[in-house]
Each structure stands twice: as structure tokens, then as C-alpha cells.
């Protein structure tokens, strides 16, 4: 349900909204076309959005296509997720400088960008909430994530189209965004319905050309209802985590190991994956070094290195770790599934491995 206050904004006003965010000190990032896909980058103007484009996604395939209208947000999620801003792929945590009889720690600049995320889909709002549990709500808080997260301004977009790979409806993570945003846009043919989710969201609209909504609210609601009905892919999560825990010896793990390349793509595109390594990067003189955090993946054998080798030496063990973590042990660790149904790992797997199919196969012959 649309349960927040809402107004109507002409499409031409979106550029002013972006300008307004920049003027308030935000770095606006959102979807744009690059390298044959819709990725996230800085947006100065509204016409940098992929206006009139859509995407066709299938397991192992992604193609851009022209739409026959000028929709601003007529596509689903691409290979990037917002974690690239909140939890950067490579980040210097701090640097260490040797002093006469000790060392000094220099925290990196705490003046990180104030991001405004434009176009956050419901699945991705849930993904951010999932990463919040990891980085903010555990026994130890990651201040690097915290700084970026607490400053971020979030403009959601209610999905008007689902890719064939989307399954948020069965994960209860979409397609309608109901919380966790400052503003949420629903694109109607002629205008945006703008829901206000926070005080600062409301404040941003002051002075922009918006008007009270009437029948548009119901129309906006219908947009996501239609999208929900279009969605064909599902993941049955009943009796997780037990289903996977009880099937750690299932023959399906051998089957998928024969297809998986252990390329790490799925973990890189997944908006909730948080595994990382921390490396020492010394300068040439050896007087200063940086502690650098980088995304790592359970598909890298080094992730589980201990004396005597990797504890997950083969692809079977690594795929099993990925899937059981995502869908089962995540629930024990964080109280929610690690999957929000965005479908990225299905599209960007070079061999089209589809986790919904893998789970269905295990479920179909439980304890095989």
C-alpha cells in the first residue's frame, strides 16, 4: 500500500531534483548506460539516465533494448549494486606510519562523499538493510560503512518492469518499496508519483514543482501490482535453513560443480555478499603502509586457506558454501536470508547457473 504522503512531479522536474541534491552537497549516483549495460555512476543531469532503454535478462545473458516509450526507469537491476558505494570494492581503511619508537595510525579521510542514490529498487533497499545487519548491528561496527551509510540519501524507484531473472515477490522483498527511503518515485506515463519516506525527503521537495496527488496514487499502486503479476521466477524458502543443512551430501552439489567455473561473478554482483580480505600495501621505502580492504569471494580457494591448504579445495565445496551461506546460515547469523531475489547472480553467471533451480533440484529430491 502507498502509506506515506505522496505528491505528483512532472518528469521534466527530475533534473531540478538532481540539481537540488548536488546543491545540498550530495554526490548523486544512479543508473546510466556504459559498456553495453545499465550501471551506476555519477549523474549531473536527468538525461544521463537510460531514458527509453530496457534490458532483457536470462540466465547467463543480458541485453539492452530500445523501449517504444521514453521511460526513465523502464528496466530492472544491472550488474552494479549500491554496495559499490557503501562497501567499496577496494578501500584503504587507514595507513600506518613508522615513527622513531612506534607507529602511528592515520585514519583515512572521514570526509567521505554524501551520496544520493537515485533509483534504488525494492530488492536493493532490502539488500542495504541486510548489509546494515552485518556492518552496523553486530558486536563490532564497521565505521567505514557507517560513515557512508548514515549520510546517504535514498531515492527509491517502484519497479514498473521485472526481468525474467527477478524473484523478489517470493522473497518478500518487492516489488513495492515500503520503507527505508527518503523519497520513492513511481513512474506513470506522464509524471512521477513521489512518496515521502522521511523528513529530509519532504524537505528536499520544498521549492520543487510538485502538486497534490489524487487518482495518481492508485495508479502508482497498480504499477507494482502489474510488475508483481509479471514475475515468473520463484524461490521456495520454506524450511530454510534446515533444507540445505540436511542436504550437505546431496548429489546436486556434484552436478553444479561440473558447471560452475568458480569465477566469483555471482559474489561480486550480489548486493549482500560482504566477504573481504585485508592486505598490507607498503610503500617502497617501507616507512608507510596501507591496510587495504578488498572484496573477496568464497569461490576463491585462498579464502579458506589454513596450514595444510584450503579447507574448501574444490568447486563443489565452494558452491555449497555460497548457497548454504546465502540461503541458510545467513538466517542463523543475521535473522534474515542473504538473498533478496534481485536475480543478478543468475544473469551474470557466465554459464547461467540459477540458484532457484539448484534449490528446487535439492528440494525435489531431499536427502538424495
Amino acid at each position, binding site marked *: 500500500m502507498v502509506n506515506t504522503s505522496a505528491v505528483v512531479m512532472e518528469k521534466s522536474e527530475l533534473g531540478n531534483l538532481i540539481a537540488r541534491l548536488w546543491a545540498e552537497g550530495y554526490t548523486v549516483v544512479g543508473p546510466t548506460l556504459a559498456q553495453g549495460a545499465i550501471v551506476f555512476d555519477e549523474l549531473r543531469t536527468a538525461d544521463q539516465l537510460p531514458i527509453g532503454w530496457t534490458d532483457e535478462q536470462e540466465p547467463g545473458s543480458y541485453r539492452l533494448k530500445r523501449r517504444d516509450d521514453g521511460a526513465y526507469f523502464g528496466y530492472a537491476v544491472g550488474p552494479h549494486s549500491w554496495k559499490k558505494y557503501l562497501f567499496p570494492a577496494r578501500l584503504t581503511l587507514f595507513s600506518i606510519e613508522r615513527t622513531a619508537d612506534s607507529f602511528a595510525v592515520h585514519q583515512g579521510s572521514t570526509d567521505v562523499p554524501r551520496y544520493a542514490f537515485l533509483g534504488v529498487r525494492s530488492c536493493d533497499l532490502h539488500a542495504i538493510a541486510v548489509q546494515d545487519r552485518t556492518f552496523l548491528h553486530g558486536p563490532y561496527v564497521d565505521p567505514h560503512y557507517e560513515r557512508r551509510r548514515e549520510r546517504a540519501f535514498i531515492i527509491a524507484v517502484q519497479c514498473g518492469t521485472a526481468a525474467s531473472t527477478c524473484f523478489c515477490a517470493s522473497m518478500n522483498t518487492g516489488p513495492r518499496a515500503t520503507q527505508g527511503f527518503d523519497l520513492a518515485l513511481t513512474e506513470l506515463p506522464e509524471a512521477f508519483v513521489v512518496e515521502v519516506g522521511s523528513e529530509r525527503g519532504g524537505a528536499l521537495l520544498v521549492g520543487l514543482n510538485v502538486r497534490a496527488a489524487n487518482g495518481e496514487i492508485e495508479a502508482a499502486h497498480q504499477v507494482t501490482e502489474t510488475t508483481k503479476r509479471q514475475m515468473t521466477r520463484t524461490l521456495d524458502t520454506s524450511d530454510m535453513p534446515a533444507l540445505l543443512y540436511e542436504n550437505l551430501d546431496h548429489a546436486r552439489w556434484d552436478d553444479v560443480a561440473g558447471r560452475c567455473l568458480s569465477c566469483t561473478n555471482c559474489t561480486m554482483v550480489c548486493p549482500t555478499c560482504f566477504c573481504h580480505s585485508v592486505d598490507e600495501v607498503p610503500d617502497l621505502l617501507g616507512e608507510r603502509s596501507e*591496510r587495504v580492504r578488498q572484496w573477496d569471494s568464497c569461490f576463491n580457494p585462498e579464502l579458506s586457506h589454513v596450514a595444510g591448504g584450503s579447507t574448501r579445495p574444490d568447486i563443489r565445496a565452494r558452491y555449497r558454501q555460497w548457497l548454504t551461506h546465502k540461503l541458510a546460515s545467513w538466517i542463523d547469523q543475521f535473522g534474515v536470508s542473504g538473498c533478496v531475489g534481485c536475480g543478478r547472480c543468475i544473469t551474470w553467471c557466465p554459464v547461467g547457473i540459477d540458484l532457484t533451480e539448484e534449490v528446487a533440484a535439492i528440494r525435489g529430491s531431499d536427502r538424495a
Partner: protein
Amino acid sequence: MTSDPYCPHPAVLRSVEPETPGVATFGMEFQEPARAAAFHHRPGQFNMVYLPGVGEVAISIASAPGEGVGLRHTIRFVGRVTNALQSLRPGAVLGLRGPYGSAWPVEEARGRDVVLVAGGLGLAPLRPAVKALLAERAQYGRLWLLYGARQPSDRLYVAEYADWERAGLELLVTVDRADASWRGAVGIVPLLFRKLALDPSRTLVLTCGPEVMMRATVHEAIDRGVAASDVYVSLERNMQCAVGLCGHCQLGPEFLCMNGPVFPYERVARFLGKEHF
């Protein structure tokens, strides 16, 4: 602002004592007295030891709480960081952060018999438990330490054995390969169980060593009637952060750095037995 949990704190290397070929015990002390005063660990916990310009590794705390000044770490030189530590001399500055992880059930063991079972370097994290148990010897029933080393020259802390035995510890040592002077047992450490007059209902078993050795130990203990919930294992996995963020140390639902490294066997049994999980 939230303090950075990845951040090491300067510590001075006070002593380096060679233990066995390729292993030494490092005595360290935080440079800041306030940090030293605020540091309280329990037997079985570990620190992250950082060498500027090289990197950081997880190392068990080998000294007991309150045992002398500073903290001791027994380190095997196996790779990039630990080999670089090998060349340090007293006075060198490195980084420490901790203590991390769960502890041996020393309090819970009051009134019970305790069998400590160590393999190789696994004696390092058990040493503070030995010291804590012996410090309050009257609180416990029989105390055994079963220790297996590859060869006699690989035994850690040999100089302390006589003190431990005088204080009331029954020590049984076995080696894989004897040398000419060796008069003791030869064979794998779990077999030493068979020499004990156990009362399984009052026995706790604490074990640390290679995973195969711990699994055999668990079997021996359970075969002798010790409850799976009375057997504790200390596990090892790759660790990058030690604060539950990096994801490297997972075993099913457990982050070993926070929920472990010490677990009641019962808690991890279903996953520990799964090959390559």
C-alpha cells in the same frame, strides 16, 4: 565516532624465547599503559598480531590472565608474516588487537575432572587453561594433560612440565617418532585416553590440535562415555578481521572469530564432520 575495529595498537616486543625448531614464544607489552591495564583475556582467546609493512595474523594468547607483565604468544614460522616475525629482536614494535573469541570453560569445570588434549602447537592455547586450573587446584578433581608431538624435540614448554606435575597435573606425552633418548609413549595422542581411569560423568575434555587429531579425540572421549556437550574443541580457519566482518572463518552458521574458536563439540558436530565444509 565509532572506533575502528581493524586498528592495531603499538606493542613492544620484550622477549623472544626459542621453543622448538621453527617455533618461539614472544613476550609483548602494549606501549600505552592504559591499554595494557584495560586488556583482560580469558584462557583460549586470541589476538591479532600485526607487523607493520608485512601483515597481520591470528595468534592464541599463550599466557594466563595475570601471568607476569604483558602477553605471550607462541608462534610457528610457516609463511609470510610469521617468517618475518622470526627475525624480530626485543625492542621491536609491532601491533596487537584483541582479545577475541570464546574461552575454555575453566569456571564450568569446577568440581569436575578435566582432560586437556593437545596436539603440536595446540598446546599454546591450552597453556593458559593449564595455568588457570592449577592456580585453583583445590577446585578441581583429577587433571590430566595428554600431549602429542611429532618428535621429542617438538615438545613445547618442556621446562615447565615439572612445575605443572608438582602442582597436581598428570602429564602423559606421546610422540609420533621417538629418538634414542625417548622413554615415553609412541603413537597418536587420542590413544592415551585408554590409559586413564575416567569417570566419564564428571569429566570435561578440552582439546586443541590438528582437526583430524581432535576428531579422533572426540571419538575416544565419547566412546568412553563423556557427553558430547562436555567435550570442547578449539578450531582454526583463515581469519582476516577477527571481528565477524570478513567472512573467512565461517563454519556453517558460526563465525569462528566471535563464536569460537572454542566450541562445545555438540554445537559444531554436524558441520565439522562434513568433508570440506
